[in-house]
């Protein structure tokens, strides 16, 4: 479904040029993959390349079928426009019926009133729900999820999961998360990114054992908090 042909990429990340991918040739067939690596900080850049959001410096990425955006990322759900304008944009982009899409999203999310408000004022959970709900509208063949699949016990989670479960059958999932349980729940194979190369490994449990998922350290509230926590426990507070 996703083919990487001689892909070499060296984007700027964290202020320096990172050798992200070096002459990678890989076919990612249909399946469910957990993106794992010793450097989760670079998952974002890898996903950009996989989704075709950014062309690599050399080589090219070809998609068979429609590949989603990085679902779960704040991404384009920000700025002064309201949610309805964003739905219109996405509908134009994917040739969807805007009215039906608005109805789908509004009936799914917990707080449909917020759709008419500027996205910059939305709380985080509204953005997350919007990103996930809107991703059900286009008929994607490859779902790329970055972050956490909804799990809080609420109406949105149950309905979204029910719809997503049905949609995912026979399709491809590329999933990057620091939640090990979710990776093990939804994925069957490992898409391992290591030393500027990507490879597919069949034994997911072994991959997770080798590259235990952890929070990317560039995310706010990530490892920083955890290290504080461990310091306090060490001194007995």
């Amino acid at each position, binding site marked *: 479904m996703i083919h990487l042909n001689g892909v070499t990429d060296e984007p700027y990340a964290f202020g320096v040029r990172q050798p992200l991918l070096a002459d990678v040739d890989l076919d990612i067939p249909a399946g469910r993959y957990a993106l794992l690596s010793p450097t989760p900080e670079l998952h974002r850049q890898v996903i950009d390349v996989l989704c075709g959001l950014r062309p690599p410096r050399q080589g090219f990425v070809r998609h068979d079928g429609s590949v989603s955006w990085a679902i779960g990322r704040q*991404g*384009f759900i920000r700025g002064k426009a309201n949610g309805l304008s964003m739905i219109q*944009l996405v509908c*134009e982009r994917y040739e969807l019926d805007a009215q039906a899409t608005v109805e789908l999203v509004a*009936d799914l999310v917990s707080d449909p009133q917020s759709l008419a408000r500027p996205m910059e004022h939305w709380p985080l959970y509204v953005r997350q729900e919007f990103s996930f709900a809107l991703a059900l509208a*286009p008929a994607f063949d490859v779902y790329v999820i970055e972050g956490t699949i909804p799990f809080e016990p609420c109406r949105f989670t149950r309905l979204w999961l*029910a719809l997503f*479960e049905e949609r995912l059958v026979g399709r491809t999932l590329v999933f990057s998360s620091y939640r090990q349980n979710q990776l093990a729940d939804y994925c069957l194979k490992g898409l391992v990114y290591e030393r500027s190369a990507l490879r597919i490994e069949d034994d997911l449990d072994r991959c997770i054992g080798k590259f235990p998922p952890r929070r990317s350290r560039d995310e706010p509230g990530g490892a920083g908090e955890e290290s504080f926590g461990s310091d306090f426990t060490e001194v007995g507070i």
Partner: protein
Amino acid sequence: MSNEDRIRGWRARRQDRNYAVGAGVGAWRLDPAALFDADSTPAVLFKPLLARLQGEPHDSVAARRAVYDAIQSELDEAVARHGADEEIADFSRRRLRLIVRLLEHDIRAGAAVFEPGYMPAKLAEEDRRLGAAHERRVQRRRLDEAQHARRHASRNDIALQIELSGDEAADLAVLRDRMRALHAGHPPRHDDEGGAGLRTLFALFVYQLRVMHGESRFALVWALVGPVVLLTLISSLYFILGTRYIMGMDVLTFSLLGATTWIMFRQIVFRSSTAYVSARGLLNLPGVTPLMCAAAQSLLYVSVYLAVFGVLIVAGNALDLVTLPDSVAGFVLYVVLMAACGAAVGVLFGAIATGWRFFLRVTPIIERFLQLFSSVFLVSEQLPGQFRPWVLWSPFAHGMQLLRSAYFDGYASQDASLSYFLVALVFLAVVALAAERLARSHVQPM
């Protein structure tokens, strides 16, 4: 139990006048319904245990152990008979062990355990803890089952059935129909199919219009103010010098064309270069590129300034201050070509700024410099012959003079060359696109 014990028990019961034969059995019997309910009080087990202990010899540890063992095996039988859940059976066994431990402790401490109303001091608290632990185990088992079902669904590529309430199931049916209808009208296609780019560009343009409309309608009025201020400045310079006509062009219209076109050019350069570098949120939508963001901004501002031109010319003409264009089509064409120049410069600046952020601080200086050599304030024919090359190197000067030639009936620029202007425009566009290609892989979605 010896006969003496039985007689002693019988005598004790005889003293209670309300005693009916067989009524004591109720206090001894284990009630399975209450026993296998996690919310029941510990009394359901404690009372029968205490009654049995009282009715049996209980002076020695061994005797008491026999009673405890008997009730334990009776509990196991009840579990087997009623087919109780392993979790709850385990909870009952733990509860029995807890009661025995606390009771035995009190007996050894010499407490009056057979007094009515007696209950070990810590029993209620400890039982609560036991109940909470049981609740946690049940919860964990439920999670394990859910996880097992989820993994089973993933392994077999089937949809996991999510438990829903009645209302939610009805909602799901509606949403499922909507989703399928959307997918049915959406044939699978490749993202890079032809036409997708133009459609996305148009969608982006409409989106930006909505943003502008939602943000502030006053911004559109403000778009009129800039050109009016600059045209007043230029005209007043000429009026102070006592000039009413410049080579057959009336000063106010001359200034209006120079000021509005240049402000449009400037806005397009700044907006598109900023959009190229900074509109990185939108890049997360597949199909949207930085070049497209820059193009959408250029399209937006050329539309805005065409409207500004319309308003100023119509209003100025109504007030008898401004003359109408000789050739509307020619005038609009040159405005659009100048906008295209602005877009090319904007993309070039954006591409440079991708590698060197500081560059966007320099661009206003470059713009001011270009303004001096772009026939904004005067046309090259006004200058002495030896100074004309100072202006005519700039393709924008050619563009502006060609624009005025198209607008005014009485002015046809001698110096401006259409071919020079067009070649320069194509050259600029090619350079901008080449720079964009080099910079593209460094513009990361945010």
